[in-house]
C-alpha cells in the first residue's frame, strides 16, 4: 500500500452537484481497485495562474488516497477521458513523509540530548544568585 496525493482541476462551468457526484464516482473507482480515499479537500473555485482551455478559473480538489499504482493508473485514465477535468497531478507522498518524519525524529533526539544540559546550567545560575540574601 502506498499513499498518494491527487489534485485535479475541474472546469468552472461545472455545477457543484456534478462535482460532488464526480468525487463520489472517484471513491467507488478507487475502492474497486482495493484502495481507499482517506481525505477529500475541496478548495472550491480558484483562479488559475494561466489560462487552460480558455478557462481562467477552476475547482480544485485534493484527494489523499491509500492504494496501489493500478488504482492511480485507473484514476488518471478516468481524468483523461472526462471532459471537464482540465488538469490533474498525482504525487506519491509516503516516501517524502517518511523522510520528513525521519528528520523530525532526529531533531527531537538531538533536542532531548541537549535539554538535560540546559536545566543544570540554570540551576548553577540560581545557586549563584541564592547566596545573596
Amino acid at each position, binding site marked *: 500500500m502506498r499513499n498518494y496525493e491527487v489534485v485535479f482541476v475541474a472546469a468552472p462551468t461545472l455545477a457543484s452537484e456534478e462535482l460532488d457526484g464526480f468525487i463520489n464516482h472517484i471513491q467507488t473507482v478507487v475502492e474497486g481497485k482495493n484502495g481507499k480515499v482517506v481525505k477529500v479537500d475541496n478548495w472550491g473555485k480558484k483562479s488559475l*495562474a494561466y489560462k487552460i482551455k480558455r478557462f481562467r478559473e477552476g475547482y480544485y480538489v485534493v484527494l489523499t488516497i491509500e492504494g496501489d499504482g493500478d488504482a492511480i493508473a485507473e484514476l488518471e485514465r478516468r481524468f483523461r477521458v472526462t471532459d471537464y477535468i482540465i488538469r490533474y497531478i498525482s504525487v506519491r507522498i509516503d516516501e517524502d513523509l517518511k523522510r520528513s518524519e525521519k528528520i523530525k525524529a532526529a531533531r527531537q533526539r538531538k533536542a532531548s540530548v541537549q535539554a538535560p544540559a540546559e536545566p543544570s546550567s540554570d540551576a548553577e545560575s540560581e545557586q549563584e544568585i541564592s547566596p545573596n540574601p
Partner: protein
Amino acid sequence: MPGPKRFSVRRKRVCKFCAEKITYIDYKDGKLLGHFIPERGKILPRRISGVCSTHQRLLAEAIKRARHIAILPFVSD
C-alpha cells in the same frame, strides 16, 4: 576569498526553510512558493535567496508541480 565589502548588497544568508524547520515543501502552498518567484515567474536562484542546496532542490520540485496545476505561472510579466 571575501569580496569587496563596502559596496556589496547585504543578502539573507540563512535558509528560510532551515530556520523554520520545514522538512517537506508543499507544492499546493502557493503563498509560500510565491516568495521564490520573481516577476518573470522564474525560480529564484539560491545565491540570491540564500536557501540551502537541500531545500532548493525540494523547492524547485514543488514549484514545478505547482506550475503544472496552475497554482503558479510558467511565465508572467
